C-alpha cells in the first residue's frame, strides 16, 4: 500500500492506494483540518498501518517557483546548470535550497522549465514533522505543479480543484512524480537504512554461525590431533617392543612397515619350509578312513595323495585340512579297482597365504 498526503493550506488528506496488477487503486481516504501551523497532533489522525511508502504534496506557499528558459533540451544539462541559472534569482544562496524542476515546454533548441525550490531548513522541518508520527515521506512533490500544467498563473491561484481531480493527480504522482524535493543530503534513506540493518543483522548472524562452526571444528581438530599423538605414541611403544634395537624413530608407521617387510623377506629366505609342522598338522587330523601315500612340500604349495573309502571321506578330509591350510583344493579323485577312492589335494600353508596378502 502507498499513501499520498495532499497538504493544502488548512487541510490534510491522505489517499491510500493499493497496487493491483499495474494500476494503483484508491482504497481509502482520510482528511483532517487544522488551523495555523501544521503540528504533530494534526498528523496523528492520518496515521494508518500497512502503508509502505508515503508521498507528500506540499502547498505552493512553501515553494519558490521560478520559470526558466534553456537554449537546449538535454535534461542532464538542465539539471547541471539549473542551480547556476537560479543564482541571484532566489533569495539567498541556491545551496540552501532543494531544487527540482518540471519541463513545461520543450523544442529542439530550447526548453522552458518551472523550477520548484524549497529552503532546506523548511524541508528538513517538514520531513522531521512527518517522520515524528511515522509518516516519513519518500517523495516530496507538489500536486499543484501537476494540476497547473506549467501555467504559473494558475499555480499561484488558491487550489480550487475538485477532490476527485486531486486524487487522480495523486495517483499519477505515485506512478511518476513531477518533482521530488528530497534530494542529496535530504534524500529518503529509509529503505537503504532498512537494508543496511538487515544486512548487518544477517552478517552478524552468519559471523556468529561461522564462529560457532569454526569453534566446533577447531575443538574437533584439537581432539583429533590428541588422538593422533596417542595412536603414534602407542605405535612407538609397540615399535620399541618389537624392534628395541631401533633407537631413532622418525616416521613410526613407515619404519614399522619397512622393518616388517624386511623381516618377512629375511624369514622367507632363512626360514625354509616347516615340514615337521606340516606333518604334525596333517597327522593331527586323525581321519580313520584316509590313508596317505605321499606328501610333497614345496615353496609354492603342498600336495598330499592318498586313498579314502568314499568320496564323502575325501570331502571331509578336505574340509578338515582347511582349518590348518589355505586354498585347499581336491585336484583329482577317482575310484580304483579295489573300490577305494584315490585322491590328490593341493593347498598352501597359512603363512604363505599371509605373506601374499
Amino acid at each position, binding site marked *: 500500500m502507498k499513501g499520498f498526503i495532499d497538504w493544502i493550506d488548512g487541510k490534510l488528506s491522505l489517499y491510500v492506494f493499493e497496487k493491483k496488477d499495474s494500476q494503483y487503486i484508491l482504497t481509502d481516504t482520510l482528511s483532517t483540518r487544522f488551523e495555523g501551523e501544521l503540528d504533530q497532533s494534526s498528523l496523528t489522525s492520518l496515521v494508518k498501518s500497512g502503508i509502505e511508502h508515503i508521498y507528500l504534496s506540499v502547498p505552493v506557499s512553501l515553494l519558490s517557483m521560478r520559470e526558466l528558459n534553456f537554449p537546449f533540451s538535454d535534461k542532464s544539462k538542465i539539471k547541471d546548470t539549473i542551480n547556476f541559472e537560479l543564482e541571484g534569482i532566489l533569495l539567498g544562496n541556491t545551496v540552501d535550497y532543494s531544487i527540482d524542476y518540471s519541463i513545461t515546454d520543450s523544442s529542439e533548441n530550447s526548453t522552458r522549465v518551472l523550477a520548484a525550490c524549497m529552503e532546506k531548513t523548511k524541508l528538513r522541518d517538514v520531513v522531521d514533522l512527518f517522520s515524528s508520527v511515522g509518516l516519513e515521506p519518500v517523495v516530496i512533490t507538489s500536486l499543484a505543479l501537476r494540476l497547473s500544467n506549467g501555467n504559473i498563473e494558475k499555480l499561484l491561484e488558491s487550489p480550487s480543484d475538485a477532490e476527485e481531480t486531486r486524487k487522480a493527480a495523486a495517483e499519477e504522482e505515485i506512478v511518476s512524480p513531477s518533482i521530488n524535493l528530497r534530494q542529496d543530503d535530504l534524500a529518503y534513506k529509509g529503505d537503504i537504512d532498512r*537494508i543496511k540493518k538487515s544486512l548487518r543483522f544477517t552478517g552478524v548472524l552468519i*559471523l556468529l554461525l561461522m564462529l560457532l562452526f569454526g569453534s566446533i571444528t577447531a575443538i*574437533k581438530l584439537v581432539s583429533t590431533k590428541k*588422538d593422533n599423538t596417542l595412536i603414534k605414541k602407542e605405535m612407538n611403544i609397540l615399535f620399541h617392543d*618389537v624392534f628395541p634395537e631401533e633407537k631413532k624413530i622418525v616416521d613410526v608407521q613407515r619404519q614399522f612397515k619397512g622393518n616388517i617387510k624386511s623381516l618377512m623377506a*629375511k*624369514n622367507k629366505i632363512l626360514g625354509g619350509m616347516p615340514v*615337521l609342522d606340516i*606333518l604334525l598338522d596333517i597327522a593331527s587330523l586323525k581321519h580313520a578312513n584316509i590313508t596317505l601315500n605321499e606328501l610333497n*612340500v614345496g615353496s609354492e604349495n603342498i600336495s598330499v595323495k592318498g586313498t579314502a573309502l568314499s568320496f564323502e571321506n575325501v570331502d571331509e578330509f578336505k574340509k578338515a585340512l582347511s582349518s590348518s591350510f589355505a586354498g585347499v583344493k581336491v585336484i583329482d579323485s577317482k575310484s580304483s579297482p579295489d573300490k577305494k577312492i584315490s585322491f590328490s589335494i593341493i593347498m598352501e600353508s597359512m603363512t604363505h597365504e599371509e605373506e601374499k596378502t
Partner: protein
Amino acid sequence: MKAVISKIIFSDRHTLVVLSAAIVTAIAAFIISVSSNDLGRENENLKKELKEIQELGDELIHIKDTVKSKENKIGLTDVSGVVSALEQILKNLGLEAKVIKPFGEVRINEFKEEDAELQIENIDLNKTVNLLYKIENSPVPLKIKSAAIKTTFENRNIFTLNITASLMSKPR
C-alpha cells in the same frame, strides 16, 4: 535491488567489516574442517594399522627371534659345505643316503644359498621325523626348501624321502 545491496555492502563500513569477518571466519572454519577430516581419516587408518600390528605383535617377535637365531647361526658356524653338513647329520642318526647331489650356490639378497638334494630309501616314519628335526634345528644354518615323502609299494610304513636342503651363508 542487487545493485543497491552491493552499493550498501561496499559503502557501509560496518556491514563490510561484519561480512568480511564472516567470510574470513567461514574460510578459516572450512580449512580447519578439511584438515580435521583429513586427520580423522589418518587416525582411522593408523588405528587399523595399529590393530593389525598389535595382532601380529607376538608373531612378529617370534619371527624376529627365528630370523635372529638363523642369522646368529650363519655368523657362528664355519662349515665346508651343504653335503658335509647333511652327511654329518645322517652319520649321527645312523642313516645312509642313496643320493646326495649338490646343486651349486645361489645368491639371494645379502645371503648365499648352497642347495643339495638328499634321497633316502627305506626309512621309517620315526627316522624321517628325526632327520627333519635335526635338519631344521641343526647348529649349522640349514633349511629345507622342499620335501617329498612317499610310501613304498611293498610296505606302507617304509618311505622314500627326497629333500632339497640349503646351507645359508653370507658372502665374504
